[in-house]
């Protein structure tokens, strides 16, 4: 069993980056590995937007990630600063009554991703417990 942390950096629709990331996550879980978290950075934060509006024969990544979370209980974290800069906001941010952040996603600081990797460094001797970072 390997533990993975997934780092997604590209916006859906513009690229197929996030689709590969999700496919990886699902296959990894099927194979008995663990996905500790998926972290969205740079344009990757657009994956969390409920404003994505696609035809039914196209891939809606926000919906896909939300379903993935429901099925597998994997935290979907996004960098709160990267999100704010790209107009993705959560409801509780004051002065902004509306929100386009899907409920499955949690706005966090960058440290959320790196603490997971750091925990890794401390347990270096125990290879099975180390978390591997994969960027998309």
């Amino acid at each position, binding site marked *: 069993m390997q533990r993975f942390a997934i780092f997604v950096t590209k916006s859906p629709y513009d690229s197929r980056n996030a689709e590969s990331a999700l496919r990886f996550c699902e296959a990894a879980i099927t194979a008995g590995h663990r996905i500790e978290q998926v972290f969205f950075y740079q344009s990757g934060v657009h994956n969390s937007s409920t404003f994505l509006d696609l035809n039914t024969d196209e891939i809606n990544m926000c919906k896909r990630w939300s379903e993935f979370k429901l099925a597998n209980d994997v935290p979907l974290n996004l960098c*709160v*600063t990267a999100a704010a800069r790209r107009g993705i906001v959560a409801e509780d941010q004051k002065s902004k009554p509306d929100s386009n952040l899907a409920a499955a996603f949690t706005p*966090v*600081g*960058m440290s959320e991703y790196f603490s997971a990797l750091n925990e890794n460094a401390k347990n270096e001797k125990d290879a099975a417990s180390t978390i591997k970072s994969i960027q998309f």
Partner: protein
Amino acid sequence: MEASKPHNTLPKQDFLKVKGRELELDRHGYLANYEDWSENVALAFAEQEDLALNDKHWEVIRFVREFYETYDTSPAIRALVKAMKEQFGPEVGNSRYLHRLFPDGPAKIATKLAGLPKPAKCL
């Protein structure tokens, strides 16, 4: 006919009144233009924060402005402590000392008083 709802407008602008001038603020309540700063700006913000400024406060305020000019970055707490330690030694360059001066968070408040943008949350 019902008046259309003005929901696609930019957020309302806030201002800081300093000596009869209205200075633009950003949405975090920080000074929008770094060049608008003067000591009176620091005093006006200090009043908002219920803070009576002494020489030690001013030393930090001037230091963070200098930091910003050198590095084009609002200093987050860790960098602020390290930089102050290098310049003033460990008595001043430690986070307990700075927290005593600015109980609501030295990086957060000192940068505000110094007219800088709010340091990024996640750094």
